[in-house]
């Protein structure tokens, strides 16, 4: 019985559909990560400013995403925006918005932390050399900060990939949803199918996240300061 259920996974288009679902997940993840990196860098650099009026709004933005669970954010945007602004958003768009906002908040904190952790004399000597602010960031601060940014950034990407699992709860047809559909179809003939499908999903997520987290660790050790 156990063995025949596992065969269902390879029957027909089941495997193909699961992979298709995984691609939906990865597509949303990928676009969100690109937005996160670009916007995170810009906001992170703005946040190194010492001006309190600049710091405060970004600080509140970051804390909001830190304190309120991502699932709640997904629900909030998914239900509130269409109800109040007569704007219909597909669940994929909602996912993309929430993930980009969240990622940007976290990324900006990583970039800010990295730039601030650079020794002060770097900043002072580049000022003494007469570099403009743009030159200072372009040639002195960012190239040095980047090594401190990349390992935590990969960690953040791993977290984002893991969190994409929540998308099934707002109805994105991604890999988990497809898995549930396969279970529903085959449940009466092969009761153990749920075990295999969820086992496979477990394994798939592990296969994506494990190399990323290893890479992050390796880079961190290599570039340790």
């Amino acid at each position, binding site marked *: 019985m*156990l063995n025949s259920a596992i065969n269902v996974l390879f029957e027909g288009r089941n495997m193909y559909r699961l992979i298709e679902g995984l691609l939906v997940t990865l597509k949303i993840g990928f676009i969100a990560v690109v937005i996160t990196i670009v916007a995170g860098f810009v906001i992170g650099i703005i946040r190194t400013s010492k001006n309190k009026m600049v710091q405060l709004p970004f600080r509140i933005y970051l804390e909001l995403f*830190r*304190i*309120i*669970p*991502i*699932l*709640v954010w997904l*629900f*909030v945007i998914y*239900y*509130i925006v269409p*109800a*109040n602004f007569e704007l219909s958003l597909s669940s994929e768009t909602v996912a993309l918005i929430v993930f980009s906002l969240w990622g940007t908040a976290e990324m900006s904190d990583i970039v800010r932390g990295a730039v601030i952790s650079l020794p002060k004399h770097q900043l002072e000597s580049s000022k003494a050399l007469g570099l403009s602010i743009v030159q200072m960031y372009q040639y002195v601060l960012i190239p040095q900060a980047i090594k401190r940014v990349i390992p935590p950034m990969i960690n953040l990407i*791993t977290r984002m990939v*893991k*969190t*994409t*699992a*929540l998308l*099934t*709860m707002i109805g994105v047809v991604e890999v*988990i949803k497809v898995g549930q559909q396969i*279970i529903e179809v085959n449940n009466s003939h092969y*009761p*153990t*199918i*749920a*075990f*295999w*499908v*969820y*086992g496979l*999903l*477990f394994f798939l*997520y*592990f296969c994506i*996240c*494990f190399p990323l*987290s290893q890479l992050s660790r390796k880079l961190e050790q290599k570039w340790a300061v």
Partner: protein
Amino acid sequence: MTEALPFYKTALWVTLKLAGIGIVFAIIIGLLCSVILYFKIRILTNIVRVYLEVARNTPLLIQLFFLYYGLPKIGIMFSEEQCGIIGLAFLGGSYMAEVFRSGMEAVSKTQVEAGKAIGLSNTQLMRNIIIPQAISYSVPGFGANCIFLIKETSVFSGIAIFELTNTTKNLMGIFYKTNEALLMLVIGYLIILLPLSLFLTWLERRVRHAEFGN
């Protein structure tokens, strides 16, 4: 709205209870694993390593689905709440282990060696030198993990536990008051997490004095 308030009260309580129990188990698992890693106990170290990687690299939702829908099919049954607690402890244990281990490793080697030189046993070394300092090093990471785990309880709504998020979803279906219900949900999490986060910042400053030698 007043009709719905008791539901939120129960939900808040369920969230707190599950998170609390889960975190306690996570701390126990974390401590065990970190001690095993610190003393490099053979075989066990490898098991712990595998556990850490598996738990850290898979989403909680999948872990819960596997526990709740997958395992009963091969004869292992848990109630929803047990699943939630097991899942949270499984995930949390790995994060806690990492924090405690790095806390122990942050205690400078010279102190450990000095302790050995004056003839302390491993237990004494652990109790009098490593643990007190490791605790103070671990507090920031520990606090962040607690907040993270409480937030993760929102995922429990996937396996039919009526905590804050799931209750809200239900109430939205009953009363059609989407905005109010979601506002209450956000407020619910703020009530739990804001004081906790302030408390942890305070605690972090308080325990600094235990650090020595830097």
